[in-house]
């Protein structure tokens, strides 16, 4: 009996020695693995707001379905049920499940009701994990500005890409204690890491108006594409930027590159008559011409380098003002020839052509204008009327904004503020410095000339609105046929660019319609779109009319 007791004591002693000394490290590690649960800290991208604080991009928390192949119990019936629940083919699901392993995704970011239905199937070996899904609650609205993210929330386009380093944040791990039944103890740590929020200069209301109107124009003219940009001419704040065709950033996988392209900054076109402003401004600035100076364009054509450039309609003698107002090609070429190629080039560069505007969106192109030494014999006849140059709609709008604001070139931008998740202002991009490029006097004179374009006798009459003066310019340009390398006789780009109210500009707007059918002229195709947008935009912004007709007042405000 004594021997048994002594032997038992020794057995207990050896076991304790084994547990507490010899196997201590191994067992301690194993215990830790069983007691401590490690989870990734969920990363939430920052929210994107419009200028009024309306959410344009935010995050949802959805459940993703995964499986543990080693313990998965999936017969044919279960596969069929699972496939019908998540609306996938059974074969697609089977290809996602490896024969062995501890983890494999089956479907990411399921809608809450679908996740609940999958849970109801009670299939052993399936599990759910919470993941953040980026959503754009306004759908297509401002999709080319916002951009989108991939399935792992990696930035792919637009603001999401440009400001990715502010929107995303670092994750990390969080450790929990847990008991034998799997219940976790509080870690006392926030399981979420939030990125910085971004406030855009875009206004959802103005963006909606712009998108609605260009959509209408696309349908009306059977156009291939359309772009419109609205900007504050004094600050460079982009108030609206829209393109058609467009896409829903909530489903970027279903979109082709043609729809994704932010053509307002990535596509070049020959500006046509909207470029006549360059020679006009240069002539005034260099004292080559005065507003009342006469130009004889009665012949209807002018020969430059063996090529004859003609007017659409034959005019007699025109003043400098009328050359711009009636968009005379012959008059513009005459002015260009008086200036000479060096000065035409100098002012084109001063007005920002051939260089990126520096907008804070990815993919902007610089366009191009050849330096004078590379001009051909016909270039001095082509460039003053907006041929042989490639511009983006944004560049043209910026040049006209310089006229609107009294002669300064602004830097267009779409982000006004970056705010930390706690609400602290990190970066403010407002009220940036402007670079004066032309004199105030020239800007004011040219503003008056552009007002004439929208008045009776001008090419842009259909851009005029009741109650406020509009200043602007029409543009009609041919597109080069890539097969023949010559200007197409069927394909045109119609545009209108201007600002309103002309004497106290609040909005600068460009409308570009690519390949309209039936009509081609900027004054017919694009100018009415300008009118439609500005009329509603002024109403939306509560900008009063300049004259007061006292006709049947409906309501009194302010």
């Amino acid at each position, binding site marked *: 009996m004594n021997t048994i007791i002594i032997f038992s004591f020794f057995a207990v002693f050896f076991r304790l020695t084994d547990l507490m000394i010899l196997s201590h490290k191994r067992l301690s590690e194993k215990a830790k693995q069983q007691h401590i649960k490690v989870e990734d800290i969920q990363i939430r991208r920052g929210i994107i707001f*419009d*200028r*009024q*604080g*309306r*959410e344009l991009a*935010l995050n*949802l*928390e959805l459940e993703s379905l995964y499986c543990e192949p080693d313990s998965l119990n999936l017969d044919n019936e279960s596969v069929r049920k699972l496939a019908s629940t998540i609306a996938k083919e059974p074969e697609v699901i089977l290809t996602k499940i490896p024969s062995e392993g501890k983890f494999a995704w089956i479907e990411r970011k399921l809608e*809450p009701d679908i996740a609940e239905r999958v849970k109801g199937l009670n299939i052993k070996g399936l599990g759910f994990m*919470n993941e953040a899904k980026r*959503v754009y*609650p*306004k*759908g297509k*609205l401002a999709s080319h500005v916002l951009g989108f993210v991939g399935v792992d929330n990696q930035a792919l386009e637009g603001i999401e890409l440009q400001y990715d380093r502010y929107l995303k944040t670092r994750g990390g791990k969080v450790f929990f*204690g847990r008991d034998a039944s799997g219940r*976790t*103890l*509080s870690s*006392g740590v926030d*399981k979420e890491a939030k990125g910085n929020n971004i*406030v855009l*200069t875009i*206004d*959802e209301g103005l*963006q*909606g*108006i712009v998108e*609605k109107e260009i959509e209408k124009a696309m349908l009306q003219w059977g156009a291939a594409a359309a772009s419109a940009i609205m900007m*504050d001419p*004094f*600050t460079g704040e982009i*108030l609206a930027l829209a393109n058609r065709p467009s896409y829903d950033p909530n489903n970027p996988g279903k979109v082709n590159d043609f729809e994704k392209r932010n053509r307002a900054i990535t596509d070049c076109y020959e500006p046509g008559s909207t470029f006549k402003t360059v020679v006009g401004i240069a002539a005034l600035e260099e004292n080559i011409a005065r507003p009342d100076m006469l130009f004889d364009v009665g012949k209807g054509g002018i020969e430059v380098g063996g090529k004859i450039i003609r007017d659409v309609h034959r005019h007699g003698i025109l003043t400098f003002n009328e050359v711009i107002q009636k968009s005379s090609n012959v008059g513009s070429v005459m002015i260009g020839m008086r200036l000479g190629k060096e000065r035409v080039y100098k002012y084109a560069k001063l007005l920002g052509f051939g260089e990126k505007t520096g907008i804070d969106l990815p993919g902007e192109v610089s366009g191009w204008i050849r330096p004078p030494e590379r001009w051909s014999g016909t270039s001095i006849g082509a460039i003053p009327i907006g041929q042989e140059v490639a511009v983006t709609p944004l560049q043209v709008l910026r040049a006209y904004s310089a006229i609107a604001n009294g002669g300064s070139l602004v830097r267009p931008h779409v982000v006004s*503020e970056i*705010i930390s998740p706690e609400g602290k*202002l990190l970066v403010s991009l*407002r*009220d940036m410095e402007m670079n004066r490029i032309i004199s105030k006097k020239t800007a004011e004179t040219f503003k008056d000339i552009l007002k004439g374009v929208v008045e009776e006798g001008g090419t842009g009459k259909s851009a005029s*609105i009741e*109650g406020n003066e509009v200043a602007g310019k029409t543009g009609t340009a041919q597109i080069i046929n890539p097969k023949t390398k010559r200007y197409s006789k069927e394909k045109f780009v119609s545009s209108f660019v201007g600002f309103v109210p002309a004497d106290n500009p*609040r909005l600068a707007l460009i409308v570009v319609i690519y390949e309209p059918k039936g009509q081609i002229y900027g004054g017919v195709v694009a100018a009415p779109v300008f009118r439609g947008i500005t009329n*509603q935009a*002024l*109403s939306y*912004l509560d*900008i*009063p*009319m300049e004259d*007061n*007709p*006292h*006709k*049947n*007042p*409906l*309501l*009194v*405000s*302010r």
Partner: protein
Amino acid sequence: MMSFIFKPLCIALLLSGLFSLVWLKSNVVTLEYKLSALEKKKAEYLKERRILLAEKASLQSYESVEASLRGDHDFVFPDRVKVVHVTPVRNKYREGVGLSNGVKRQKGSLTKKASLEKRQSAGP
């Protein structure tokens, strides 16, 4: 005599100290379980809140508001020609006591108001 009382007292104190420690520890663990359950509940509510926020943002979008108003209520943009803007006469007394707009202005205005609005209020 002293040791007769002192010894059991010490043992009782020691035992009660030990039990208190165990009791405290178990209470801490129970609280941690409760906290964990509350955290889960909070996470659920936050998740729901996010869904509701997204739904609200979607319902308040320019497009859906315009469509619903136009469809059922025949709302249209006001005809600018029929709108007259009247600048209110400044009332020094009301401004002095902070009643110029009926309510006191909020300090630290919202960040969203950018220069467009600033210039609008200081406009012609």
